[in-house]
Structures are given as C-alpha cells and as structure tokens.
C-alpha cells in the first residue's frame, strides 16, 4: 500500500544555490577564476612581488614591459605589476565593505518591511529620502570632514546603495512572506524574526548573491573614480584609481601605462558582473526543449501529407458536426499525451470530456482549436469538422475557423479579458473583426450579446474594465466574446471550475439555453461529474490519455461499465446525500501515471480493484452493451453481470476509537453507519 519513491540523490542547498549554475556558464567560470587569482595573488603579494611599491628604478622610467618589469614602470620608475597587486587586496576588500553594508542593510530592511505594514510605511519613506539625496555630494562632504578614510567612505556608500537594494528585495520578500508555509509557521508560534530568518531569507538567497556581485563591481568603479579625482588612499600608497589617474597624464608620451591597470580593473568588474549573471540566470533558461521552427514546419508537412493519404470520409459532411477519429497528441520527441481518442459531437448537443488532471482532456480540447502549446502536436488521427480535417489544416486555415466556427471559453475568465481595455472595446473589436461590421453596428451587436448572456445592466458593463466586474460576470462576458463570431462549436475548458456553485448553476443554464436557441454544439472539459450530469448529452471518460468509456450521459453515470468511472463516482461526495453518506469514501490507490510510465496493457490496471491477468494486453474500445456506449475494459461484461461495486478498501491503518472520544461523537458515527 505504501508507495516507494524512486531513489534520487539528495541535493544540498549549497549545490543547488551556486555550484552548477556558476560553473556551467563559461563566463561565470572565467569570472570566478579571475577573482580567485586576484584575491590569492594580492593576499600573498608580500612574498612573491619582485619589487616594493615604493622602489624607484630611475633607469627605467615610463618603460613598457621588460624582463625586469613585466608590466612596465610608471613616471617614477615604480614597478606596475607590484603596485597593481599590492593595492588589489585593499581595493577588493573595501569594495566588499560596500557589499556587506549595502546588501546586508537592504536585505534587513526588506525583511523588516515584509514583516509588518507599519514598518514598511516608515522604511519606504526613509529609503525614498535616501534615494533622493545626492550620493556624490555626501561622499565628498564625508571626505571633507574625516579625510580619505576609504573603509568608512565605502561603508557610507553601502548605506546609500542599500535603499536601492531594499527596493529590489522588498517585492520578493513580501511574496515569500505571503506563502502559506509562513502562515503555517506563524500558527506554530514561530516569532516574526525566526520566520524571517528561516523561511523568508533562504528564498532571497539568489537575489542576494546576484546583487552582491553587481554591487561589488559598482563599489570597485566608484572607489577607482574617487582615487582618480584625488580622494584615494594617501600618497604614496598605490591604488588602481590613482594609477589610472597618473597614467592619464602620460597618455600621449607613454600610452602603455594605462593598459595594465585599466585591463585589470575592467576584467575584475566584468568578472563580478559575469558571476552575477551566471547566478541570476534561471536554470536551463538558455536551453530550449522545443524543436526548431524548421523541424516543426517539416513535421506539419508530414502530418498534412499523411492526412491527405487517408481516404476521405464516405458520409457527406454534416453542417456543424465534429468527429474525432483516432486522435493522438504528443510531445515532440515522442512522449504521447493523448492516444487514439475518438468521439462525435452532433449539432446542438453537448459532449463532456471528463477525467482527473493529467488525463489529457485539455490537450484533446486544445487540439480541436489548433491551440496546442508549442512543442506539442497532433501526431496521428483526424479531427473532422464539417468534413474538413483540422489536424492537417494550416495556421491560415485555422485562423478562418477559430472564433468564426469554433470558439473557446477558458477556466479563468479574467485571463480571456485584457485588463487595459473596457469590456465594450474588446467585444466590439472582436465583432468588427469576425463579422466585418461598422463601429455603430458592432456596438449594438455587443449590447445584444451581453443581454443574450443574461447581463442585466449591459450598458454599464460595456463601459467597465475587467477588474470592475465579478468572476461570474467576467465569465458571462467571456462567453459573449466567444459568441461574437457566431460559432457552431464552443470548446469550454472547465468554464465553471473557478466560480461559486450558485454562479456555476447560472452559467450552465446559460450554456444550455444557448445550445437550445442557436443549435451550436459544445465540447465541455470538466472534472466534475455533477456538471456532466447537468449539461452533457454524451460523455467521454478519459484516463491516462485514452477514452475509457464513451456514451450517453444517462447510461454512463447511472450504469458505469468501466472500473475507473465506477471508482470516480464512488469517490465523489456529491454522489451521496447526507442521510446515506458513507463513513469512508471509496478511493483509487496511487495516482494517474505520468505519460512516460503508461503501460502497454490497460493503463488503469495498476490501480484497479478488479485487475487480473487479462489486463496486461492492450485493450480496445468495445461496445459496452448499453445503447451506443463503448468501454475499454476486458472485464466489463463480467463486472456488469456480477454487479460489482467499487468499495472503499483504503482502510485506516489504526482502526480503533480511543476512549477519550466524547460520547456524542461516537453517537454520530453510529448514526451515520446505521443510516
């Protein structure tokens, strides 16, 4: 009963955070190496440097690279190599002060602000003031007051930068603070500080590292800039900025002088940025699993050729009839998502595609519209709409069909509407495009459509923006939008799942009356068997990419033949009223298998209570014996004869009622059991 997990290596936070990402990117690797070399070389400088920084060699003033002076000498004959590396440690170290102060303070402020609204108000105002202060002036003022104390200046720079870091961190910290696991920790009684440290801070780690790398580069440049204008470490102590400054005075007579220090500074800044980029990049963001456009075009051509080769349907095409034959949908690269799905939708009827998530019902519905996500394509079979095979249709053909003949309503009505435009604008522009109408005419049509979908004050709604209307109203508008091209088939992907039940009932009634009045047909994707019972004439039950049972709604829900349908009904608390509610619901052990794990035989066998040795071979869809129903189960007839029911086998591990349970609670259990 207890599932075993596939063995996967345990990832430590450290490897996840940095290692792979940093070393996987060549620039990140190069940047890391360069910084490591710089730090090591500068820290060990006293032991290996050929000259002291003040040693003057008057025999070689302003020389280029020689055997004695690898990187040449400056105007006083001092060795450039020695000066660069001797000053590197301090330059890098003081830049790091800016990072620690800036990122540290910014993060602390963001954590505090995410924790309480009042703190956020105060901190945000203070940081706004800080960001409006002229940073350069403040730093120069500090230098005027305390002299060129580089660590102090870099720390103050950090404070000034922290306001910007705070802005970057705040949004992320707030979204982490709103996660349910933070609520759970609050319920545990974890203090706000402990929550910030344990649950929010780790989530900020990537941003912190990236920002640190960038601020490090900024610190280096600002420090060099300060030294350049004469606010570096006191002379004769070397500094990169000071060396660049003196080089700039000999830019005509000794241009080489600028090169070593300039290159080292530029490479160090680039390294910091490269590390930041490598760490900030989402894993695998560069790699695409999608095939190239050329491959996709070629595949589409093959599919069209294959479709053309199949003999045309003998029956004359009926207006508004959809028939799907042997449809398979798969990921490019082979994994099938939907296999051999067939169904018919007669004009003026509603077909339900029902199943749990991961069963392929949405993929089936999207393939009807030619709207499969990129990387997923129809691999086999036909989608015959009025006799035309949509599976082989070009994008251009589909554009003529989408909206005009087949329209879609989705689960999230708000996503179907653009928040930037009024309902009226979106509706009239769709009408003008699909029905080639003038502005005034389309406006009248829009009003009519809204009234048709049961909106009482249609004029007000036309002027509203999507955020001003409720979810139920938005779904009505989305339906009106779908109806704007007078489609003959509506594909509805879980259209009521996001709505309250009372609103759901209204939307279902609306769809029912639309079907009755206009004679259009509907393909309704849903996981709710109650919705199926309410609106569907025919139903196809899907499991793991296959139709397992197909037929008239009445016969399928009242006399299910496939064990999966049987199990779904037994697991549905809606199937029972309060007086006959069982003490335990039936369950299906395990979960829907992933497409790559589909077995060759019956895909439900591993979870089926009735599975036997006959279930290991592929099972065809056969007549179920009830009306025109079809069922994909070798034992269907046997089960029907025996009248088997899916029983609740998922029993409690410890079935006992402890003594401390109050008397009336036990009473309730027995009442329920007896009923």
């Amino acid at each position, binding site marked *: 009963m207890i599932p075993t997990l596939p063995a996967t290596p345990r990832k430590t936070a450290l490897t996840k955070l940095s290692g792979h990402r940093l070393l996987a990117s060549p620039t990140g690797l190069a940047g890391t190496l360069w910084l490591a070399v710089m730090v090591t070389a500068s820290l060990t400088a006293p032991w290996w440097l050929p000259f002291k920084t003040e040693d003057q060699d008057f025999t070689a003033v302003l020389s280029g690279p020689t055997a004695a002076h690898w990187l040449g000498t400056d105007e006083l004959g001092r060795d450039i190599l020695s000066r660069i590396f001797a000053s590197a440690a301090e330059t890098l170290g003081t830049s790091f002060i800016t990072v620690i102060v800036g990122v540290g303070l910014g993060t602390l402020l963001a954590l505090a602000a995410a924790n309480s609204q009042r703190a956020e108000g105060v901190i945000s105002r203070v940081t706004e003031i800080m960001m409006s202060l002229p940073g350069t002036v403040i730093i120069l003022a500090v230098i005027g007051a305390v002299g060129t104390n580089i660590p102090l200046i870099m720390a103050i720079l950090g404070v000034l930068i922290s306001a910007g870091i705070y802005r970057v961190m705040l949004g992320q910290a707030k979204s982490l603070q709103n996660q349910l696991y933070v609520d759970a920790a609050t*319920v545990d009684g974890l203090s706000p500080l402990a929550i910030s440290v344990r649950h929010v801070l780790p*989530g900020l780690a990537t941003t912190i590292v990236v920002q640190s790398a960038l601020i490090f580069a900024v610190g280096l440049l600002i420090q060099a800039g300060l030294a350049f204008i004469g606010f570096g470490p006191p002379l004769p102590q070397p500094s990169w900025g000071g060396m660049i400054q003196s080089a700039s005075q000999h830019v005509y007579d000794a241009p080489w002088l600028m090169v070593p220090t300039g290159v080292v500074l530029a490479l160090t800044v680039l390294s910091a940025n490269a590390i930041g980029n490598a760490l900030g990049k989402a894993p695998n963001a560069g790699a695409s699993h999608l095939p190239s456009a050329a491959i996709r075009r070629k595949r589409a051509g093959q599919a069209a050729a294959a479709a053309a080769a199949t003999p045309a349907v003998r029956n004359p095409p009926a207006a508004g009839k959809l028939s799907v034959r042997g449809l398979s949908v798969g990921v490019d690269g082979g994994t099938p998502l939907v296999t051999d799905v067939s169904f018919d939708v007669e004009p003026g009827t509603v077909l339900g595609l029902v199943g749990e*998530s991961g069963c392929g019902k949405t993929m089936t519905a999207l393939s009807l519209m030619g709207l499969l996500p990129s990387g997923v394509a129809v691999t086999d079979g036909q989608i015959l709409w009025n006799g035309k095979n949509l599976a082989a249709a070009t994008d251009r053909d589909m554009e003529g069909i989408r909206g005009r003949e087949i329209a879609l309503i989705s689960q999230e009505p708000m996503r179907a509407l653009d928040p930037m435009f009024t309902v009226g604008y979106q509706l009239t522009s769709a009408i003008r495009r699909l029905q080639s109408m003038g502005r005034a005419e389309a406006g009248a049509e829009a009003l009519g459509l809204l009234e048709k979908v049961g*909106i009482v004050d249609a004029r007000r709604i036309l002027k509203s923006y999507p955020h001003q209307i409720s979810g139920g109203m938005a779904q009505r508008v989305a339906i009106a939008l779908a109806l704007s091209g007078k489609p003959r088939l509506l594909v509805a992907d879980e259209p009521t799942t996001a709505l309250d039940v009372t609103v759901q009932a209204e939307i279902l009634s609306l769809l029912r009356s639309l079907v009755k009045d206009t004679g259009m047909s509907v393909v309704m994707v849903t996981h709710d068997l109650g919705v199926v019972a309410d609106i569907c004439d025919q139903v196809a039950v899907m499991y793991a990419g296959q139709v397992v049972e197909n037929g008239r*709604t009445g016969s399928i829900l009242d006399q299910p033949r496939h064990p999966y349908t049987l199990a779904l009904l037994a697991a549905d608390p809606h199937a029972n009223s309060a007086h006959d509610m069982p003490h*335990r619901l039936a369950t299906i052990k395990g979960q829907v298998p992933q497409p790559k794990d589909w077995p060759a035989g019956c895909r439900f066998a591993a979870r089926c209570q009735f599975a036997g040795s006959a279930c290991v071979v592929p099972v065809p869809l056969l007549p179920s014996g009830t009306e025109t129903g079809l069922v994909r189960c070798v034992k269907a007839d046997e089960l029907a004869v025996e009248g088997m029911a899916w029983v609740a086998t998922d029993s*409690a591990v410890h079935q006992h009622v*402890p003594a401390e349970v109050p008397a009336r609670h036990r009473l309730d259990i027995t009442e329920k059991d007896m009923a």
Partner: protein
Amino acid sequence: MSIDTPLRPESASTVHRMPMLEVKDLVVRYGHGRKAASAPPAVDGVSFAIQPGETVGLVGESGSGKSTIGKAILGLQRVSGGSVAFQGEDITHAKSGKRRAIGSELRAVFQDPNSSLNPRKTIGASLAEPLRIRGVSSGVARAKAEDMLERVGLPREAVDRYPSQFSGGQRQRISVARALICEPQLVVCDEAVSALDLSTQAQVLNLLADLRDERGLSYLFIAHDISVVQFLAQRVVVLYRGQVMESGPAAAVTESPKHPFTQALVAASPVPRPAEQAQRRAVRESLGVRTASAAAATAGGCPFRQRCPLATELCSTERPAVRRVGEADVACHYA
C-alpha cells in the same frame, strides 16, 4: 446582533464541558481609516462553538468571510471586534509567545499544497519544525516525522526529500502530517481538499476522518463545497457576506435547508445522477433566487435581500435575528 448557536439537544450531556473553540460576535474589517470603517465588514458578528471531538463545517461562497474567520482564529488576521476563546482561554489578540504555547493544540491545514510547504526545506525539516520550536531534540523529531509520514500513507524515506518530489495529493497528506505531528486538539482545515482531484480528495477526506476517529480531534472544516463539508462535519455553519445565515446539524442543513440562501446553495450543488440533477435544476429555477451579479454590497438589513425571493421592505431595514426553525438556527424573517 449576537447569533447564538445553542448545542444540539442530544449533546446536552456536554453542556457543562468547556467548548474546544468559542467564537463570539467576531468582526473583521480589512484596511484602515474612514473608508474601511464605512464599508461592510468582511466578517460581521459571527458566533459559533466547536465541542471537543466535533467537526464544524463553515460553508459559503467566495467573499463570504469563511477563510477570514479561519485566519482570525489562527491569529493570521487582526480581529476588529468580538472574541475567540480556545479551551476557555481568550486568544483573540494572542501574540507569538502565547501562540507558541497553544500552537501544538491548535493547528491548520491550508488549501494550496504547492505553497503550504517551504520548497527549500526537506519534508523532515518542515515536519520537525513545530516540534523543534517546542524543544524536542532533532533525533526524536525526525523519528516522529517518519512515524507520521507512515501514518498518512507515505514512505518513511520521504523525510529527506523536497516538496517538489511529491504530487499535490501527497503534499496535502504531508500538510496533514505536519498539522497532526504535535497531537493537536483542534485543526482548522481551510479548503484543505479543494485543489485536489476526486480520487485524491477522497483519500485525504478519509485520512482526516480516520485521524479524527483515532484521536478524538475537533475540526473547523472550511470549504465552499457543501457536499465535501457534509461528509466530514456534524454541524454546518452557512455564511453569506460575513454573516451566519443558518447553522445546525449537517443532515438538517443540507437535506432540508430553511434559509433561502442555503436552499439556493444546496440546489446549485450538482449531483452526478442525470435524472436527479434535472429535478434539482427544476427546483433551483423555481426558487427564484436572483443572480449574484445583480446584488451590490450594501450595509444594513439582511445581506441576502437583493437576491432573495422572499425579501420585503422589512429585510432592508432590519437585520434578521437568529431563530430556531426545526433543528437549525436561521437568520431570516420569513424562513
């Protein structure tokens, strides 16, 4: 304004016992300032009690304030008025110290299995956290976490894995395990099964029922789906726009609802039997409840009056008092 929810007659023997949870005249307002004060509150004078070992279902549509009530009880939402007492102790404005003291007794299972576990912590670390902050050693906490995982039907090795390695249903079991690991008295389940598929939902519902029977737990079961609530709850409280419309024994409220809103809610919940569903649809259409979109939120009177087929002038001037109708307590002038 107070809405009493007297105990059921058969529970008279427990009257002298202290309720596990008692919510009295709870009011929650969102926002600050004058504008917020004039808007109708999200929760408006809600009272109910949960007895030891009892499961109370809180049902309502989106915006009815049901989740806000759960949050107020858990200390995740500031309370504007009224009180929440847990085992006789007032916890309305309890701070984290006091929350920690009662945190092992009062636990929660949240809706979204994707965000209720920290993706950066192992399952073991998440499960052990509530124990560790109460001073349990890491070895003991780990052993308990393994036991608890086994109890909710997951392998013991799961302690070393991350939430992303589990499906939604498995993660919800882990959330249940986390809630129950410190042997609580009351668990607030906020839409705990709403995001799950039918078969997985049934597994989690069965698990919740089994654990309750095993340990004599009390649940506050918050859900929008009245059928799910009636599976688990002995008593149901129906909310509309932050006010209690009807409360009473689950069977009475769901089988013969008295309040027009409860009637509409029950009739709108579809059943997977086509013939019966057609009847229910006819009943629903005959109720004459007006569409939700026609009703704007207004203060004063009965919150349901704009949609209610029975509404009169009285309903817009006077908020209905709670009356006993049959087995249920109903806030309606005409029920």
